[in-house]
């Protein structure tokens, strides 16, 4: 039934989009300037930011042009100085320039002071360009139009991404403009092997995307698979890379990520050099990288910029943090409500003393406190920064201390929830799965004790082992595990020791010619 509904919806969308395209195809360009302008005007009915301006050459009044652009996405200076001015003042006479396409070539070569010019007859292309900040130049008596690059829209400054703060390392971050983002990567990898292929997504938004990879390193099969999946996407709008992520995910119902995301150029370059493929999308600073191994949830770009002694420890802490944040509430409830024998006597007495006059059973208490914590966290993200302080006071004092003092909640539960919350911040890339897994394990623990907890945890691990990204297993525990493959997992090996790239991801494994760069041994 659900299949039927979704198919039905899809057909409706397709119909609408095709309807839109047909409308465009029915309006071919003509030789008459007025007709062309009317076509554009009718296409942009009720779009008041469209500006249409007629221009006539001073020397030869038979040379008549018309430019059309959308106000706000163009640079007024370019249009004034580089388009209108040369067109009006040009000394070339109509006789010099006329005769079909020849006129267009002459305009491009001798008159217009624009770097990027394109001839077109396609009305669809004209619409796409005009909405993206280009200026369309129609010439009287010519069946073609010129697309002139006059983009000039306001962009955000390059800033360090808020949610990927680091202590040391490059601090630049992507912004919303595709070309600027690409330039940040381009600059870091000065080789022709870095390929950048454009692609457009979204029937409505026609969002530009760029698929980046390093030709000699990337696994060609994975690249082919990625293109196959991207080609099958049929969607009206793509506003963020998460749209694509969900469309090409291997297991669409799994809460775990199977694609990476970052706002940092250094991370993208690092991943490209390991053989991954990056997908840039216009209009979002978030860049998607595939394939995504499970261990990447625990990796941070900073791991590579700080001493490997320090970062190996942080890796370890993040993995422990993941286990704690999904396990602690369930484990606590299992021990306190089922297997009390597992607790050391003194601990049992302390917890029992704290729970003595608390109204709710431990399991209900755990559910409520987790819910309260999630509410607090969510408000913390969405609220304006200037009311942060009152919120933390309410959170810490009212819900923490006052609830314990009023004997509404047992103090150990506050500790458990606090531990859960703090450790979840260690693995920000897994914010979605941890919420569900935590509750999943808690439900099992509250009904079956430690037994349920262990079954649930086994289920989680089976699921994780079954995850794939672009068809390769996210977590490989096969017998063919190689020493070089785990050097960047639970620990971060020193750079001189990471000789190869991960096997499943690349066609070219050798990273270092000689692993001894300095005075080793």
């Amino acid at each position, binding site marked *: 039934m659900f299949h039927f509904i979704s198919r039905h919806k899809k057909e409706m969308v397709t119909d609408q989009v095709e309807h839109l395209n047909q409308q465009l195809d029915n309006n071919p360009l003509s030789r008459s300037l007025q007709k062309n302008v009317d076509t554009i005007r009718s296409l942009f009915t009720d779009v008041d930011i469209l500006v249409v301006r007629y221009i006539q050459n001073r020397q030869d009044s038979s040379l008549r042009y018309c430019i059309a652009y959308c106000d706000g996405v163009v640079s007024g200076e370019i249009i004034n100085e580089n388009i209108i001015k040369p067109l009006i003042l040009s000394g070339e006479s109509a006789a010099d320039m006329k005769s079909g396409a020849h006129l267009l070539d002459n305009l491009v070569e001798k008159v217009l002071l624009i770097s990027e010019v394109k001839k077109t007859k396609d009305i669809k292309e004209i619409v796409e360009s005009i909405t993206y900040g280009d200026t369309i130049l129609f010439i009287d008596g010519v069946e073609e139009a010129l697309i002139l690059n006059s983009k000039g829209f306001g962009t955000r400054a390059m800033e360090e991404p808020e949610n990927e703060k680091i202590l040391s390392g490059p601090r630049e971050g992507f912004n919303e403009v595709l070309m600027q983002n690409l330039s940040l990567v381009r600059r870091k990898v000065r080789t022709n092997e870095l390929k950048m292929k454009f692609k457009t997504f979204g029937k409505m938004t026609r969002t530009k995307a760029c698929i980046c990879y390093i030709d000699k390193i990337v696994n060609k099969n994975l690249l082919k698979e990625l293109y196959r999946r991207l080609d099958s996407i049929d969607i009206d709008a793509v506003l963020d890379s998460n749209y694509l992520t969900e469309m090409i995910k291997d297991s669409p119902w799994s809460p775990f990520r199977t694609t990476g995301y970052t706002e940092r150029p250094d991370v993208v370059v690092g991943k490209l050099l390991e053989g991954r493929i990056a997908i840039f999308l216009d209009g979002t600073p978030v860049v998607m990288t595939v394939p995504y191994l499970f261990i990447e949830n625990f990796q941070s770009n900073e791991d590579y910029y700080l001493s490997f002694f320090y970062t190996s420890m942080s890796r370890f802490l993040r993995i422990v943090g993941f286990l704690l944040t999904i396990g602690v509430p369930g484990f606590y409830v299992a021990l306190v409500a*089922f297997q*009390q*024998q597992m*607790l050391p006597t*003194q601990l049992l*007495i302390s917890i*029992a003393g704290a729970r003595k006059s608390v109204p709710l059973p431990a399991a209900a208490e755990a559910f409520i406190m987790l819910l309260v914590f999630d509410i607090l966290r969510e408000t913390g993200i969405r609220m304006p920064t200037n009311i942060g302080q009152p919120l933390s006071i309410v959170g810490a004092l009212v819900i923490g201390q006052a609830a314990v003092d009023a004997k509404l909640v047992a103090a150990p539960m506050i500790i458990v929830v606090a531990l859960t919350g703090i450790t979840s911040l260690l693995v920000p890339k897994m914010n979605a799965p941890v919420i569900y897994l935590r509750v999943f394990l808690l439900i099992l623990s*509250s009904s*079956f*004790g430690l037994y349920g907890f262990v079954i649930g945890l086994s289920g989680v691990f089976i699921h994780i082992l079954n995850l794939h990204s672009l068809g390769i297993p996210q977590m490989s525990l096969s017998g063919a595990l190689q020493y070089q493959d785990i050097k960047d997992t639970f620990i971060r090996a020193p750079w001189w020791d990471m000789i190869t790239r991960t096997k499943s991801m690349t066609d070219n494994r050798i990273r270092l010619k000689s692993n001894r760069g300095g005075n080793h041994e």
Partner: protein
Amino acid sequence: MNKKIVCLLLSLILLLSQTGCWSYRGLNEITIIAGIGIDLDPKTKDYLVSCEIIDLTSTGKESGTKAKLVESRGKTVMDAVRNAKKRLLNKLYWGNNEVLIFGNELAKSGDIGNVINWFLTDAECRETVCLVVSQEKTAKDLLSIYGLDNSVVAFEIKKIIADDENVVGTMENVQLFQAFSILNSPGRSLALPAFRDVKNDEDIVAESNGEAVFKGDKLVGYLPPEESKYYLFAVDEIHGGILTTSSTDEDQTDVSLEISKSKTKNSYSYENGQLKFTIKIETEVAVDEMKPGVDLLDEDTLEKIEQREQKMIEERTESVIKKVQTQYNSDIFGFGNMIYKSDVKLWQQLEPEWDKIFPTIQVKVESKVNIVNTSFLKHS
């Protein structure tokens, strides 16, 4: 696909519902027992069960954990335990019980087998509970006092027993499951730690006092701490403790030796209807205390101390064994069990008469003491 999911769900439901240990029981629905004392009323033959329970109203405050005593009586142990619920808000919870104390009367009447059985078969009790015999009139007398350090006396007793073998070396920590297996193994008798009340400063506190010797499941007598130490030597359970001796030939105790390691090997021979046991004890000790002026770098001095100590261990161990053989006639050393393990046929031959044979066994103790550390201070 649907079939798979249904199968998975079915098997999960079956799996989960067929296992035990999953009834929800909140911590506020239980009364935590720290220690249990079991007595026998000599007149009515009722079991008297005294449970030391944790007083949760006082926990978490600065005063520390307090305990209370719950008493009940019944025809059987289970009956008595259930009767306790008549005066309790919550059910008794046995999972963290630390010690099980047998009253003197109960132990003498020969019922400990019963009680051990019940505690083992009950699902909630730990198999690792420490067993203790109260030398006071009843087990309750031991539980009703306050501990010196920890106000829950059961925890204190447990800790005293657990640390004893490494620090004092006067008793053997016998846990519930071990006691059960000793009771049920041929040619072996049970010895349990004994405790008594003593006056310390102003208060009465519990103190360990050697071993209680059982024959079958009947208490037959006690070994005081001075003797129980040599019992431990004989059964290879000594891991620490102090030996004292004299540095000169005069009869004056002025040397303390701390046992760091001790190994006992038993062997036996059976010739002409006579059983001979040889007990070889090898002990490594460190000099801990010494009269000033004795040259500890002198090998002769050390050797003399060693020899004097060896002689003492030999004599005292033999005398303890003699005492147990003649006075109690209870094979707490497991001599019979040794024969059973190495030569079943011989054991089958000896078993019916074992009570008569045991007192006649000749035991030879050979001791070897090595001083490995002399705590030598240089005199300037």
